[in-house]
């Protein structure tokens, strides 16, 4: 971490990842650089004019800590929407482009499907979307405040619930941060099993999302088959680790319990079935013109735009960004293996599906490597009651999840969590403009940003 002058802070030209504040300091994480600047009267120079991805972080710091970003263009509330004691507040105005024939469509916070809450405001002319504004913050639970004053082992339960679909990845990033702050060396067996869980989680989410996109385009049998595979991966996780989502399994210092004796066989069975059927499912995506018609060119995110927001995960990789936290900065056990990172440049829904299909096969390959043979060390060590600062990252299925911790005598004093969704939500607002209203469910699912992960 480098304390710098406000000028250096404002003019830094790196790839922006996250911004947050504590009592005295504002922090900005860039690729390969970690800057800090002192707060002056609770304010710091805004980064959002130069780095648009910083917008949500600045609004969050305003709502959580009351710290102002000086020079920020967008200052609407992030999570602090309702201020009156009875829970009510005036409904905000959503600006609309000044053109004849425009009307607005309001969606949410309760959506039609089984998903999290959030409000979307579309400004449309006919069917064409001219503007989309996402209003988030509905599922704000006060996660960061609850983590303060607790030991890393206790706070890990909150890290595991930042975003349930990425519970392993967030637990892992949190554990990495705690282990770096407390200088812990995690046993090798725990490293391998953590990676097995992380890859199982990636497969479960990729299969489920790919199927859901196909289902939205009218291909119900693809949805059914992919959901079947997601279910068999969850059943294998239950058999191997005792929990379908592997929640609370990754803890600072290692993992909560060893894999069951029958676990590897259960996992291999699920992977075998998936590997066998995946080629024919993939061919449906490639061969059916009516499906391609819905997916190709839909929800386009240009390489320029992806660079501007430093998009990670399959969203970045489908728009030409060769980026994967497992490789860069990298962490054990991945840094001992060659990773195949698929990259495409089309940036549409179809490209994001192709990336995710390729990642499924890479994950099945990695799981087999990690499980055979498993190192024979213990699976956890106890965190010491010491003091330190740590930054941790893990590549969730969406992209890199970053956790930052300050620990004093074994208790957390400050914590921040950046889910990759924070940088993907504004990209969704851009991607929606390339389509009509009926395309939005496909575009939204193809990016699948987390609500809970940004609401915190």
């Amino acid at each position, binding site marked *: 971490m480098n304390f710098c002058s406000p000028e250096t802070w404002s003019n830094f030209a790196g790839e922006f990842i996250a911004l947050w504040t504590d009592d005295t300091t504002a922090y900005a994480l860039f690729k390969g650089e970690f800057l800090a600047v002192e707060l002056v009267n609770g304010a710091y120079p805004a980064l959002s004019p130069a780095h648009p991805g910083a917008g949500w972080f600045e609004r969050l710091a305003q709502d959580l800590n009351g710290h102002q970003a000086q020079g920020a263009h967008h200052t609407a509330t992030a999570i602090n929407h309702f201020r009156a004691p009875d829970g009510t507040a005036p409904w905000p105005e959503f600006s609309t482009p000044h053109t004849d024939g425009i009307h607005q469509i309001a969606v949410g916070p309760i959506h039609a499907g089984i998903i999290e809450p959030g409000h979307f405001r579309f400004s449309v002319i006919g069917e064409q979307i001219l503007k989309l504004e996402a209003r988030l913050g509905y*599922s704000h639970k006060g996660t960061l405040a609850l983590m303060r004053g607790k030991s890393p082992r206790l706070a890990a339960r909150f890290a595991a619930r930042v975003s349930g679909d990425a519970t392993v990845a967030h637990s892992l990033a949190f554990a990495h941060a705690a282990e770096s702050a407390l200088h812990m060396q995690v046993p090798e067996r725990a490293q391998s099993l953590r990676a097995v869980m992380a890859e199982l989680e990636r497969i479960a989410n990729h299969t489920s999302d790919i199927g859901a996109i196909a289902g939205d385009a009218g291909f119900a049998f693809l949805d059914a088959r992919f959901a079947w595979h997601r279910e068999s991966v969850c059943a294998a996780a239950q058999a191997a680790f005792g929990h379908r*989502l592997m929640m609370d399994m990754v803890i600072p210092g290692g993992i909560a319990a060893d894999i069951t004796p029958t676990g590897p066989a259960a996992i291999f069975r699920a992977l075998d079935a998936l590997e066998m059927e995946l080629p024919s499912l993939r061919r449906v995506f490639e061969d059916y013109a009516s499906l391609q018609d819905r997916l190709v060119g839909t929800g386009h995110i240009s390489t320029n735009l992806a660079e501007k927001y430093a998009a990670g995960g399959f969203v970045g990789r489908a728009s030409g960004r060769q980026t994967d936290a497992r490789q860069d900065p990298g962490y054990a056990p991945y840094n001992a293996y060659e990773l195949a990172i698929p990259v495409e440049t089309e940036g549409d829904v179809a490209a994001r599906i192709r990336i995710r299909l390729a990642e499924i096969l890479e994950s099945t390959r990695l799981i087999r490597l990690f499980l055979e043979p498993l190192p024979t060390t213990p699976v956890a060590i106890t965190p010491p009651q010491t003091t330190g600062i740590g930054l941790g990252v893990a590549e969730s299925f969406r992209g890199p999840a970053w956790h930052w911790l300050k620990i004093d005598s074994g208790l957390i004093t400050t914590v921040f969590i950046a889910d990759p969704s924070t940088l993907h939500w504004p990209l969704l607002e851009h991607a929606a403009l390339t389509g009509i209203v009926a395309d939005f469910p496909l575009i939204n699912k193809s990016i699948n940003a987390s609500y809970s992960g940004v609401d915190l």
Partner: protein
Amino acid sequence: MVWKTLARHLATRPAAPRHADPTTIGALSQRLKEASTQKLGRSLAIRHVAAGSCNGCELELRATQNMIHDLSRYGLSFTPSPRHADVLLITGVAARNMIDAVRQAREAMPEPAFTVAAGDCAVDGGVFKGSPAITGGADSILPIDLLIPGCPPSPAAIIEALLALVEAQDPPPLIVREI
């Protein structure tokens, strides 16, 4: 292409079939039959609302619809509109930002209706208990008829609990509007 696909399917072993536990299915179907004179017919339409979840419960709710668990075989289904719903199923804590929306969803439902809290967070706030950003579990917004614990509850546990509602003998309570 058809011939190639056929040939490949002849040459490869089919994936081992997986089914939900047959004894559970048998027992659940039996219970459904026995609860024969229901006030809601042989079905429940469910409107789900996430009131502050981590999305883990939503994953498992969606999994109840897959080929393995297939909740529609028991006459249960999810509906997008509260106007068509018999059950308001709440997941997640009562986040302050969602309280109004949850109340409005309940008011939009026809009577009689059940309210169900699924998952530890909806049951009592779960790990987030005591956070100033929430008011507690779902019962801090509306009276709850059924609690489904678990973090998250498994798809089988969700289906089993919902069937318990179908066979419940008491008529569903009419909700008092001023809460």
